[in-house]
Each structure stands twice: as structure tokens, then as C-alpha cells.
């Protein structure tokens, strides 16, 4: 005990307080007491709702523009306005003023760099009054409708895990990664 550093002593006394045998604690190789519980891949899949630009995280399913328009009218229009022009919430489409103008309009079409972000945020957070209630098919459909409203895809295009990551976004090259630049300058 004498040779142990303070953290170690604290740890062991914590574990003792919690009724755990200290001889077990001394065998722990990590810096912490090692109280995490393993989860199966199936269990983790139920937690993981993040979608990456390359499509990782996109679920099975599909949706099209016509389906998406109907859902938009019912569940999105009240806040985002007719044709995504904005009401109490973000303007999503219909940018007239460019990003270099006096009053730039930052919409999905003019500003958002990745189409996958749209699916991700709609599935996790929309509609604000009942977040997380759209099915994967409905989410693909709303995503398709919003991309169509921004003249990025055609009316007959179908969005799914394979097509969505390939949708070219007009402003994908419009961002400067300041963190990487600062890191390189150091």
C-alpha cells in the first residue's frame, strides 16, 4: 500500500467503500476501477443513430419525393413553411441571395455540405413536437422531398442507403476546416 500512488489509494478505498475486495482492484490494469459493462453488437445497434457522409449508419428502407411531400405537408410545414421557405424554423430551400450577398440565405441547397446530415437530423430530432417518430422510410422520403425542393435530385429519384450518400451537394467544398489548419500550423 505504501508504494501506491495517491490515485491508486483513492481508487481502492472507493472500491472498499463499495464493498469490493481490494485484492481484485489491484489486478485492474486500466486507470479506472473498470466498472463498465459489455454490450452485444445488437444492443449497440439500437443505440447508434449517427449517420456519416459516406453512408455509415444509414438503415435499410427507401422513400421518394411524392411520399416525402405528403409527410412534409403534415409534419414539417407548420414550422418550415410552404416549399421550405421558412416560418418559425430554419429556411430549408428557395435561396435567392447567394452566400456572398449582403443578406445570404443558408439553405440545404445553398449551404449544407452533406445530404446524409439531413437524414440524420430528421430521424433524430424532427418533428420537434414528436422527435424520433418518423419511420426510416418516412425519413428517406422527407429527405428526398427536401433535396428535390432544392433542385438537387429529380422528382423520380429514390433515396436509400446506397443513393443518398452519392447525392452531390452544391456547397460541399464551401467549408474551411479551421481546426486542421491550426493543428498543421503548430
Amino acid at each position: 500500500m505504501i508504494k501506491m500512488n495517491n490515485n491508486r489509494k483513492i481508487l481502492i478505498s472507493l472500491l472498499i467503500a463499495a464493498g469490493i475486495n481490494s485484492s481484485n482492484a489491484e489486478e485492474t490494469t486500466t486507470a479506472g476501477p473498470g466498472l463498465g459493462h459489455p454490450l452485444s453488437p445488437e444492443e449497440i445497434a439500437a443505440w447508434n443513430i449517427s449517420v456519416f457522409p459516406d453512408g455509415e449508419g444509414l438503415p435499410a428502407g427507401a422513400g421518394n419525393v411524392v411520399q416525402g411531400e405528403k409527410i412534409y405537408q403534415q409534419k414539417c410545414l407548420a414550422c418550415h413553411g410552404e416549399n421550405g421557405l421558412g416560418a418559425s424554423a430554419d429556411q430549408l430551400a428557395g435561396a435567392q441571395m447567394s452566400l456572398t450577398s449582403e443578406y445570404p440565405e443558408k439553405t440545404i441547397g445553398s449551404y449544407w455540405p452533406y445530404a446524409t446530415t439531413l437524414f440524420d437530423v430528421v430521424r433524430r430530432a424532427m418533428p420537434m413536437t414528436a422527435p424520433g417518430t418518423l419511420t426510416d422510410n418516412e425519413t428517406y422520403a422527407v429527405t428526398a422531398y427536401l433535396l428535390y425542393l432544392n433542385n438537387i435530385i429529380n422528382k423520380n429519384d429514390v433515396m436509400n442507403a446506397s443513393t443518398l450518400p452519392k447525392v452531390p451537394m452544391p456547397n460541399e467544398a464551401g467549408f474551411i476546416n479551421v481546426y486542421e489548419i491550426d493543428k498543421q500550423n503548430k
Partner: protein
Amino acid sequence: MTSDRLNGQTLEENQVAGNGLLDRRLFLKRGVQFGVISSIAAASTSIATTTENNPADPAWMHVPGKPFSPYGMPSSFEDNVVRFPTQNEAVPGNGVSWTPLHLMEGSITPNGLHYERHHNGVPQIDPKQHRLLIHGLVKQDLVFSIADLLRYPMQSKTCFIECGGNSNAGWNKQPSRSEAGYFNGMVSCSEWTGVPLSVLLDEVGLRKKAKWIIAEGADAFAMQMSIPIEKAMDDAFLALYQNGERIRPENGYPLRLIVPGWEGVLNVKWLRRLQVTNRPVMARNETSRYTELQPSGKARMFTFPMEAKSLITSPSANMVLKTPGLYQITGLAWTGRGKINKVEISADDGKTWAAAELQEPVLDRAFTRFRLPWHWNGKSTVIKSRAIDETGYVQPERNKLVKERGRHGFFHYNAITNWHIDSDGFVSHVYDKDEQQQKNSDITIDSGWD
């Protein structure tokens, strides 16, 4: 105290910069008294007009006081010291509430006054049912209960959290008319206590390709943000306590990620999941929001540290200096890149500057309180402060910031704030003269807090 002599010396003998800025050592001298600064709304009661109660024998010395309370509340006479909420009209859980910095002293924000930024309300989380999952590019995916985390070795750090959009009214063409805290108070400073994130990342075992972690909250927005692994392993931690008590629901109960000095949005509240990856997720709040559109049409992205900033909290907007005489200029400075080295104050609209007294201890990535005595001669003037941090970075004038970044970045506004004091002692926010706008002056920035 007469207006021209202090402690037997002339004003000039005490002056350290133009227009009456005085030696900070005056604070140590006896007999120094400051003039009255009041808000325009507040009714003032002078010693002479106290008639309801005889201070020599007040009524409250003749009745038993109120009983003990399980949880103390501020005096009812301080009920104006409150957060100022502004929220979306259709979604009341989407908005902000501002810390009333102009009504506070010291450098710690009481928990009930810490600023809030929620994307869809404050979840009411039962800690027994809350879990933190760490998964992805790790040797062993693990889930932790709050009871588990409470058994880990903890550390405390006093640090500020500032929303990336704090002070964004500064981008407007017209100066804000709000009180100082109600357009700069999306920053607060607490002592946070919890488990170093590096301890948990060591426990799950990072794989070699691990470069980022995606942090996600258990709120109705399921707010997620990407954070470089270097920062996660350096000084990020999982806070369970704020100023000695468990974190308040509106500040992330039961678990909040603290990323010292970096944008508030990265300090994910109600933390439920950390996904270790080799790249950022490109979440809505790191692409369409919390990026800064520049005049070139390109936008700055992953602008993590909050740059050095200072703000005079008193006297400040909508306060009144009652009479010419001696006043205490006081305010706060902070930087996301370490410690504040120096705060300079000018009382002559930037012509001359003097170093303010910094309240010790000056802590890394925490509020630093500064003060300096000032003799106001009763004439119209502009006072301002500028922070210089330990990297040598100097808080910019608004002209310089707007010239570099344009007016549509929305986030990361850290320019010097000017307070104009007119000959009646009334304080208001002004921009530098050469940047007064000529046209379209009624139009402000159009971005809200959606």
C-alpha cells in the same frame, strides 16, 4: 471626497491613463468610496430616506426569523437577478436564457443563473435509468450507469462555458440596447467535478485509427457533436457535479461532457453516448449551424476554442452614474486558450489604456474578474476593456473583426465592447465612430436560435 483630490493627492498624481483612470493601488487605501451606479429602473433608497424601519432598532429584531430551509433561495429583494430567456415562438424548448452578468460580482456563476441553450427542452432524466455507452473504434464497447461513474476517481475544474453564438448581436449594424448580460451572458463559470474522459477511454481501449469522438445527448434533439480525440484525451471530463451539487437538469443532469475552453455546444448535456470514430459525423450543428460564413462565401468549420474576450459589467448599458466622482470599473475576461494575462481599460475611447487589477487566482479557461478605479469628470466619454491571453492574443476592436470575418458569421463574436457615458451619466452601447452604419440600418442579422 472632492472631485480633484484623493487621499491628499491630486487626481493627476493617481492617474494611470487618460480621462481619470486611476492607480489600482487606490483599492488598498483607506477612505476610498465609489459613486452610486443604478439601473434606470431601480428605485434608490438613500440612508437619509430610510424611514419605514429604524436601523438602530429594526422590526426584524423583534420577531423570530423564518425557520430552516432544505434548499436556500436568494433574498426576495434580489428577484431582478434572473436569467433572461429568449425562445422560438413555436417551440418554446428551443432557445437560450442569458446570465445577468451585469448584476453579478465575483467569478462564479450560481447554478440557477448559469446560461442555457437547449435545442428542444430540458429532459427530465431519472439517473437510475440513464446510461453512458462508449463504443466504436475501441477494444471493448462498454456501458456505464451513473452509479458506476460516481465510483470513479474525480477531478474538479473551474472553467467557463460559452456558447459559440454568445454576443452575436455584435454583428448587427446597430449596437444592442440590451443590458450587458442580456447580449453577452451566454457564458457562465462553474466549478465542475467528474471523471476524466481519458480514464474511460483507457478503459474501453482506443484503437489506432481513433481520431474523433461523437458525443450525443439524451434530449429530444439527441444533440450530437464531433470532438477531436486529442482534446478528449487531454482535458475533457464527464461532470456529475456543478459548484458542489449535482448538475441541474437544465445544465445536463445527470451527466455533462466538459470540454474546457471550447464552444459551449461541444459540452454536450445529458450525455448518453460517445462513439469513437476516425472522422467527424458532420452533424447538423457542425455543418449548417455553428459554422461561420465569411465574406468570401466560404465558411469556417470546427472553430473550437473560444477566443479571448472581456466585458465591463459595471458600469454598463442602461446604468446611470449619479454624479461625477470616483467609480469602480469592473468586468470579466476569459479565453479558451488558457489564462488571461492582462486586461487593459480605456476611459478615453481607446486613446490611452491602463492595466486593470486582476482578481487572484487567475485560472486556466475560467472567468477572471478585473477592476480599476476611475474618476468620472461628468463629461461624455467611452469606456472599454480589452483582454490579452497567455498566448499573446489581443481581443480585437469590432472594426478589425468585421473586416476579417464579415457580418454573417453569427458565431465567435469576441470584439471589444464600448460603453458610452453621456453627460447625464447614462450608459449605452456604441460602436466606434467610423463604423456607424449609414444605410439599411433598421435591418439586423436574420438568424435566430433554431
